[in-house]
């Protein structure tokens, strides 16, 4: 995989790229690239630099891009490689939680609980809609940011960018089974973080059996 993609090959023969073709293929994905760079670097200065580095490298290696394949996935793969090599600060390993204990449908279940805890409120809006209504961009972004690094990109690429599992596997250079398992745990964790950010509560302990509706 690395061979097919000589990221550092300054000595690779330079095949001229047509700027017009390049722009028409690549510029529709600039916003996605920028968002991804923001997630990776966490600040707009580094994000802009990372987008620029990605763009320049894509320009240089445009002859390797197969027209008709997903340009966004191709660009993301370049970005991820540059990020890993040049930008990534030493990773802090999160404390190992038992992610398998994470409840399915956490947010949905909490939305139902919140109705039960407010019996007087005869709302017209259903509780799920009320939760979704509150979900603003800040809550989403900070929840994604709070995800442990191993889950963050996989969850973001599938959930926010809508990339296929095979594309994510290529971008992050991980097996497709790992994409699936990271998504499974990462999305459950994301829902806890979303709820935490929406309700201003701390996470309940992982072991607490919550939402065991009778």
């Amino acid at each position: 995989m690395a061979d097919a993609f000589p990221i550092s090959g300054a000595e690779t023969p330079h095949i001229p790229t047509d700027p017009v073709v390049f722009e028409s293929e690549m510029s529709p994905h600039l916003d996605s690239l920028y968002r991804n760079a923001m997630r990776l670097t966490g600040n707009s200065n580094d994000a802009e630099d990372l987008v620029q580095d990605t763009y320049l490298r894509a320009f240089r290696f445009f002859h390797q891009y197969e027209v008709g394949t997903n340009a966004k996935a191709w660009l993301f793969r370049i970005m991820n490689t540059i990020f890993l090599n040049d930008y990534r600060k030493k990773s802090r390993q999160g404390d190992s939680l038992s992610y398998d204990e994470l409840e399915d449908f956490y947010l949905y279940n909490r939305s139902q609980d919140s109705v039960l805890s407010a019996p007087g409120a005869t709302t017209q809006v259903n509780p799920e809609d009320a939760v979704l209504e509150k979900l603003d961009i800040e809550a989403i972004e900070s929840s994604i940011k709070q995800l442990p690094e191993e889950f963050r990109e996989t969850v973001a690429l599938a959930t926010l960018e809508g990339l296929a599992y095979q594309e994510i596997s290529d971008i992050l250079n991980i097996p497709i089974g790992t994409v699936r398992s990271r998504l499974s745990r990462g999305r459950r964790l994301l829902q806890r973080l979303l709820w935490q950010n929406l309700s201003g509560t701390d996470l309940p302990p992982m072991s607490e059996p919550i939402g065991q509706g009778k």
Partner: protein
Amino acid sequence: MASSKDNKMGADCPKVIGEILAGRTTVEVTKEVTSPEGEVHTVTETISAFDFYSCEEAIKRLNAYLDSELAPEERDDVMKHLKICAPCLERFHFEKTLLLTMRERIHRTIAPLKLKERLSALMKNGE
């Protein structure tokens, strides 16, 4: 892990699911199919233990369902479950809405104009 999941799922799902899974009953549902000529017909299909997912099996496929990563037959079987199981349908629907809501809101963040202009200028100069 599996046991707590079973309890949770069993709680609010219709009894008929257990009956189907045990082979004690079958349920008829209708579905719309589009013919090669583009006409939509309503057909009746019988749901039996033969190809029916339990809640747990359906939920296992939630992510792949949301991401359109299920094989067509698997997707059919998930849909069959959702036709019978209103609580799962509601939860799946919520998950889909949640995903689309997040995607739509996050896509409001766009690259700064000056970055786009800078890149465009760089490309015009041929790097």
